[in-house]
């Protein structure tokens, strides 16, 4: 188990929280990917871990954009705690029930439903909080260096 990543000033860890708010439109999903890539590099994630995180956050944003109704933006919160990187993606609209989207391994190829399956495969902990009034809140954590 590696020690928590520290800044060049070794007396400070990089633990903390960052937030990104993007318009709920397809052209902005790549910005969420770039943001998580930057954060992941900062905490010394491996290339594979960076790619997993990019895909997971993009799938979560894509679900918000494609399935949530009435939302204007997607809020992404990144929380660093030692070797744990947690991403919370909230649509702020009428939400969608992510639990209903392909929760099980795929039996036969389907055009839709792959996104949630990928998130569950790539992240260590995934939790959906679905409320028809306040929207969907997807919390997903990856433990780096496993």
């Amino acid at each position, binding site marked *: 188990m590696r020690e928590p990543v520290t800044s060049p000033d070794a007396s400070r860890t990089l633990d903390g929280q960052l937030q990104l708010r993007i318009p709920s439109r397809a052209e902005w999903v*790549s910005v969420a990917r770039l943001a998580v890539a930057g954060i992941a590099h900062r905490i010394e994630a491996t*290339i594979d871990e960076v*790619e997993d995180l990019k*895909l997971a956050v993009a799938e979560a944003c*894509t679900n918000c*954009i494609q399935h949530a109704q009435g939302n204007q933006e997607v809020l992404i919160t990144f929380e660093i705690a030692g070797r744990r990187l947690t991403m919370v993606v909230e649509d702020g609209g009428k939400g969608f029930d992510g639990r209903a989207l392909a929760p099980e391994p795929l039996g036969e*190829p389907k*055009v839709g439903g792959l*996104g949630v399956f990928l998130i569950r495969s790539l992240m260590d902990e995934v939790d959906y909080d679905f409320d028809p009034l306040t929207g969907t809140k997807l919390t997903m954590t990856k433990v780096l260096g496993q």
Partner: protein
Amino acid sequence: MDIKVSVREPNGKSGATVVDLNGEIDVYTSPKVKETISELIDQEHYRLVINLENVRYIDSTGLGVLIGGLKRVREHSGTVNLVCSNPQIKKIFDITGLVKIFGIFDNEKAACESL
């Protein structure tokens, strides 16, 4: 972030139509890929090779486009083979089980010959 899509028909016995993709395939760019593949199928090109060698990123919407194309060509006894040697892209096909339904090859020659 964008995707460049081009189509060519290499000389050879395979009769393959090759679609070269260059860039990132996500919810924003995948409609362009879908449009190209749909047009090819409408024009009765049912033996497709999708070249992913210059694709740096693909997500579920990109996978959905490829699956949709495969389903359509299969209705005409056609098939879709992929060219992909990038381990991070291949990993996504592995996780989703799509390695079992697509032919995935390390080079274009092998992908065309196995159609």
